[in-house]
């Protein structure tokens, strides 16, 4: 088990990534591009991200299971319906969409190039440990769910 697994809250990862994107855009302004509707795109993606994350949280609350991403082993039920029928990680997908909105707002190629870093970090240090815990907790039910629904979208 790597020391970073389940250690940094996903919202913290988003804040760090957003800061990095802003910093990268500042140091290489030459990579900025002009996009007339950038603010509209930024707001649309951020709103879609908030809505996706909120739907995931609501599903968890309805199922009365933990929404704490640092303790997946405390999950009391496997939620597979609603938004979870389309993405295994809607909350993280929502955070990614918010970052995409931020990248549109910054309108800098470097900001977009940093987005895969968020996905890779989340896959390795958040989602994979969660999936190990859920496999142990829910066995065949989680195996079947994993086979039916993709990790992100």
């Amino acid at each position, binding site marked *: 088990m790597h020391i970073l697994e389940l250690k940094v809250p996903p919202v913290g990862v988003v804040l760090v990534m957003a800061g990095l994107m802003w910093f990268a855009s500042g140091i290489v302004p030459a990579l900025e591009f002009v996009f007339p509707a950038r603010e509209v795109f930024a707001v649309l993606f951020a709103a879609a991200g908030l809505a996706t994350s909120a739907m995931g949280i609501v599903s968890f609350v309805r199922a009365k299971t933990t929404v704490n991403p640092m303790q997946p082993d405390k999950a009391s039920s496997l939620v597979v319906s609603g938004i979870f029928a389309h993405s295994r990680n809607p909350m993280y997908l929502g955070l990614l969409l918010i970052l995409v909105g931020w990248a549109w707002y910054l309108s800098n190629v470097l900001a977009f190039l940093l987005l895969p870093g968020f996905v890779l970090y989340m896959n390795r240090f958040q989602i994979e440990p969660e999936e190990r815990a859920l496999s*142990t*907790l*829910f*066995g*065949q039910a*989680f195996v079947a769910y*994993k*086979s*039916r629904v993709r990790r992100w979208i």
Partner: protein
Amino acid sequence: MRQFERVLGFLAVIVLCTGGVCQAADPTPKAERPAAGYFKAEVRGLLLWKDSRYRVIVPPQERLAKEFVLDLWISENKSLVQQLQGLLGKQVVVSGNVVWVPKGAQVASDADYTLGFTQFEIKQAPKF
């Protein structure tokens, strides 16, 4: 000299008692674990998602007898799960090896196992 012979004799008795004799006295040879066996089976029944796993319910021939239930043990396999989802609620024919499989995620005793297929082929049963 006589004392030296006594000491030697004493040591010989100790060696015999602790080493050779004791080792020879072990009457239980280690049994080798037999190779895993299996039932080869083909069943016709109703495929359901029940108790958080895929299960085939095989109706009894006798009216009052209990139905027979076999689990389908799956690993992560998109095409297989897609096939199983499409067959849910239908009569299927499953063929493969039947072994003990865990009922749930946690296994603590023999009671946590049930009979099921691990490697199997499944298709929709032809209508009679």
